[in-house]
């Protein structure tokens, strides 16, 4: 690998994996909770939550990045607070890239999980309650196993989106090698550099391979889980 990619390029690959990993890890519990709330609960502000969740999908990524900068930048309300109290910064760091990737991928996670929750018959959950299971146990023993294919699909989509996020990331945390320069940002830089086409092509092939592998893996897991849940 190191013969083929320079250390700087290899760094971009590792950074992309790290950014996508943390973006997925944090999106997962929040995404499942929000998907469950949207699918099952009726509460004031439900429609508003639905719109907010889907905004990154519809808005220009640059706008999302700009809003992130306003909120989570060192001068922003949330970013400034975290910086002062915990010494934790998003701005111009890989953590910011992970935040941007997570926010951009969040709608994919919520949609996949929500669809699978809506496919679960609430009558099964009722049956579990009559058998003595509290709400938490029902979720763990009935709902969660039944929506596992949806969660896997959502996770893979989130990871792939995290690997490929460009617009919000470059707006929010800029293009800093070793900090925020993920594969797509490296490709962008290579294309702007004279003689960088070969590098851009190598990175492009690499991201296609990574994406295809992730997809194949998730298909395989989903089929195995579906066979278990499906009964036979």
């Amino acid at each position, binding site marked *: 690998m190191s013969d083929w990619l320079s250390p700087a390029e290899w760094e971009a690959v590792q950074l992309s994996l790290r950014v996508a990993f943390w973006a997925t890890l944090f999106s997962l519990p929040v995404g499942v909770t929000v998907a469950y709330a949207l699918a099952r609960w009726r509460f004031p502000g439900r429609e508003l939550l639905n719109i907010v969740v889907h905004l990154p999908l519809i808005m220009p990524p640059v706008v999302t990045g700009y809003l992130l900068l306003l909120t989570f930048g060192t001068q922003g309300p949330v970013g400034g607070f975290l910086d002062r109290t915990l010494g934790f910064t998003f701005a111009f760091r890989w953590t910011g890239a992970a935040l941007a990737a997570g926010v951009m991928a969040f709608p994919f996670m919520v949609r996949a999980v929500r669809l699978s929750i809506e496919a679960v018959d609430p*009558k*099964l959950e*009722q*049956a*579990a*309650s*009559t*058998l*003595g*299971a*509290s709400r938490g*146990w029902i979720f763990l*023993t*009935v709902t969660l*196993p*039944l929506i596992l294919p949806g969660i896997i699909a959502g996770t893979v989509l989130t990871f792939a989106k995290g690997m490929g996020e460009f617009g919000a990331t470059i707006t929010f945390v800029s293009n800093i090698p070793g900090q925020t320069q993920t594969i797509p940002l490296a490709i962008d830089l290579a294309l702007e550099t004279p003689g960088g086409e070969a590098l851009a092509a190598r990175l492009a092939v690499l991201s296609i391979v990574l994406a295809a592998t992730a997809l194949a893996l998730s298909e395989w897991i989903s089929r195995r889980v579906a066979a*278990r*849940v*499906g*009964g*036979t």
Partner: protein
Amino acid sequence: MLEVSLRHAFAGFTLDAEFSAPAGVTVLFGRSGSGKTTIVNAVAGLLMPDEGRITSGDWTLLDTQKRIRLKPHRRRLGYIFQEGRLFPHMTVRQNLAYGAWFAPKDAPREDMPRVVEMLGIGPLLDRRPGALSGGEKQRVAIGRALLSAPRLILADEPLAALDEARKSEILPYFERLRDEVSVPILYVSHSASEVARLATTVVALRDGRVASAGPPEQVLGDVGAMGTRGAASILTARVVAHHADGITELSGAAGTLWLPRVKAREGATIRVRVVAQDVILSRALPDGLSALNILTGTVAGLRPGQGPGAMVTLDMGGERLVARVTRRSADAMGLAPGQPCHAIIKAVSVAPQDVGQTFGDAHG
């Protein structure tokens, strides 16, 4: 004893029912829309009624006045649903163990191998519900409810989704449940033959109200609760012999009955449901008839209906038999209480699903 008192208003329908369910099987009986399932769901806690009180002994599940509304998972009931509702991602064994796992450790509980044996589901334990037939699923659902160490078993039309063959496959398991398990059972049904076979007590519902309640012999013969076409009697009889021509000889208080082959051992006691409009009455002892059963008794009551019919109740050695005849025939025959009378029942008019085993027979 389970005591239920409920009031709940839906759009265009009000439930206002009060009844008690002693030990054994209490069947909530009525047409669809009469409020049966609403009652069972309120007992299970799946529906919160506007007002009501549900107690079992000194244990209160619901008391809206005292603001007690126990959550479903704290009620410790075994609910057998119409569609089984088995967990598709678990094996039969895991389904059976599910409720047992949540039951308090010191709760009196059924023994898994015994329940598996009783329901005949041993070969299914490692399969998943997707690979089971409708009847098998329902047997597993019975086992799952039973093994959750319930204080009360609820069954909401557990046979309604099955075809006739599967029904006659499952019904005996409910008879065994009634006879071998001490947990009281609240059973919803719209089928008079299920009532006749299973019920210790019947609560007949009509339009959200209790139309009649009591032992099945009494409620099934009640024209007010059953309608003129549904009224029937229940005769209890012992199997004397299975004859070579396919006829079973039975002996009861009313006399000797001859029925098409009954699925019960010789010596077993069974219940036979006889629909009132299938009974013919005769003052004189008939001769040369094709009907096999001629029972003799005395007229105990005569009640003209609203139309051209009349309900005649006969006393036959302590058992009651109701017959629906026309008022014209009743007049022509000069029927009056105290008079001797013969009842003619065609053997083939008693449907096989109307013949069931009764208490204490399981060992015999």
